[in-house]
């Protein structure tokens, strides 16, 4: 298909998740005090996959939660469409925990900014580490990810589309040229 290329396939995605899980454990010297929080929608499933990997590697079940940041966004005034809100689900205490915040694509950094504000309303974690599947550049805020699955330099006319079987029909990462699609 013109204007749309598959950058990572399903085996590749699995390898990336395996590597990132090891990096998380290495960086934190094990799984003690770690909690995973995925950002809706695809970050949620990505976090669940990392959770499974860590369970395989260390045989521990980390606390895992879901964060919806809609209410913290700064673009209400700019957007024409009203974003649909859904429910955050963090049932454990995040105080003094090392929080691994998981999302699919890191772009301007504004979603992560909202997530940081949202997390602060749940408590005061010891640290927040950002785990991102694709870093596509073009940051507008001073935000950096600890764990990056893949760096894909993009232009503003391109879009990264992460697909996951939980919500889409396949596991893959696509680079889409908006002008050419």
């Amino acid at each position: 298909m013109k204007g749309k290329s598959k950058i990572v396939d399903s085996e590749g995605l699995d390898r990336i998740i395996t590597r990132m899980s090891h990096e998380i454990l290495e960086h934190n010297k094990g799984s003690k005090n770690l909690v995973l929080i995925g950002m809706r929608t695809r970050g949620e499933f990505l976090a669940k996959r990392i959770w499974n990997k860590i369970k395989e590697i260390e045989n521990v079940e980390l606390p895992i939660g879901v964060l919806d940041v809609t209410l913290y966004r700064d673009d209400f005034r700019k957007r024409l469409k009203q974003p649909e809100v859904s429910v955050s689900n963090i049932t454990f205490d995040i105080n003094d925990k090392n929080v691994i915040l998981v999302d699919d694509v890191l772009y301007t950094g504004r979603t992560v900014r909202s997530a940081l504000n949202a997390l602060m309303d749940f408590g005061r974690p010891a640290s927040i580490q950002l785990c991102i599947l694709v870093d596509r550049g073009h940051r507008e805020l001073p935000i950096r990810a600890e764990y990056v699955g893949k760096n894909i330099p993009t232009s503003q006319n391109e879009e990264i589309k992460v697909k996951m079987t939980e919500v889409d029909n396949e596991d893959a990462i696509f680079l889409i040229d908006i002008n050419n699609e």
Partner: protein
Amino acid sequence: MPLSSRHLLGLQGVPKEDIQLILDTALTFREVLERPIKKVPTLQGKTIVNLFYESSTRTRISFELAEKRLSADAINFSVSGSSVSKGETFKDTIKNIEAMKVDMVVVRHAAAGTPLFLTKISNANIINAGDGIHEHPTQALLDMYSIREKFGKIAGLKVCIVGDIAHSRVALSNIFGLITMGAKVSVCGPSTMIPKYIEDLGVQVIYNIDEAIQENDILNVLRIQLERKAREYFPSIREYAKYFGIDRARLEKNKKSIVIMHPGPINRGVELSSDIADGEHQIILQQVTNGVAVRMAVLYLLGTVN
């Protein structure tokens, strides 16, 4: 997908999708209310005036909390101690308040149609918090939210509204909303308090409270509004309590399970006996909690579109 209107004046004619959206959105805010910090920055920088020309505890506090938990700036206006007592007209008061740059107005007034009038003289988003004997949409929305929370659905349920149907804005909003959502609605009360053409709205009229208990899943029991001269419509309060009041003996005589709702404030011993008002059938305080979440949802949905 935003709501189809930029005001919430009533539930008459409001499409099912809008009600559904408000109830779904309220679920998010219900979760916010369970957090250690019950506040989100969503309406930061918005100014909301609560314009209450009639006394209110629950609704006003509920709206004020909802506004504060969305980080909006909330201003309260009540008639006593305002320039209304100096003879300023309603329109002048509004024009002056609007000149101070407000984004949304929550209004309660004894005259039906006040919120509609406001939409014609102001650019703010208007939310009806009760206008005379017309509508009280957020109360009906929180009632429907509470029903959905309890039963997991609204469609197909049988709901009976009990009491002074003719002078109740809560009843009217509930009838419009519940019928839109597919519930089967009936009303029950003394014949003097049932409006003549109420059946045209698609509701069934029941004059016997025992029958109402037997046939319904939910009773939404209204307050007998003694301040609105309700006494003129029946011989005595004791007689009303005897024929339409709900107490344990009456429930046990008639039925296995039923859910009792009440918009508050309760006249204990009149429409509900104390042991029912505090008993296992009622969800009255859940209604109050849900009220904040539902009002946050309405403010969010109206306040974040241009």
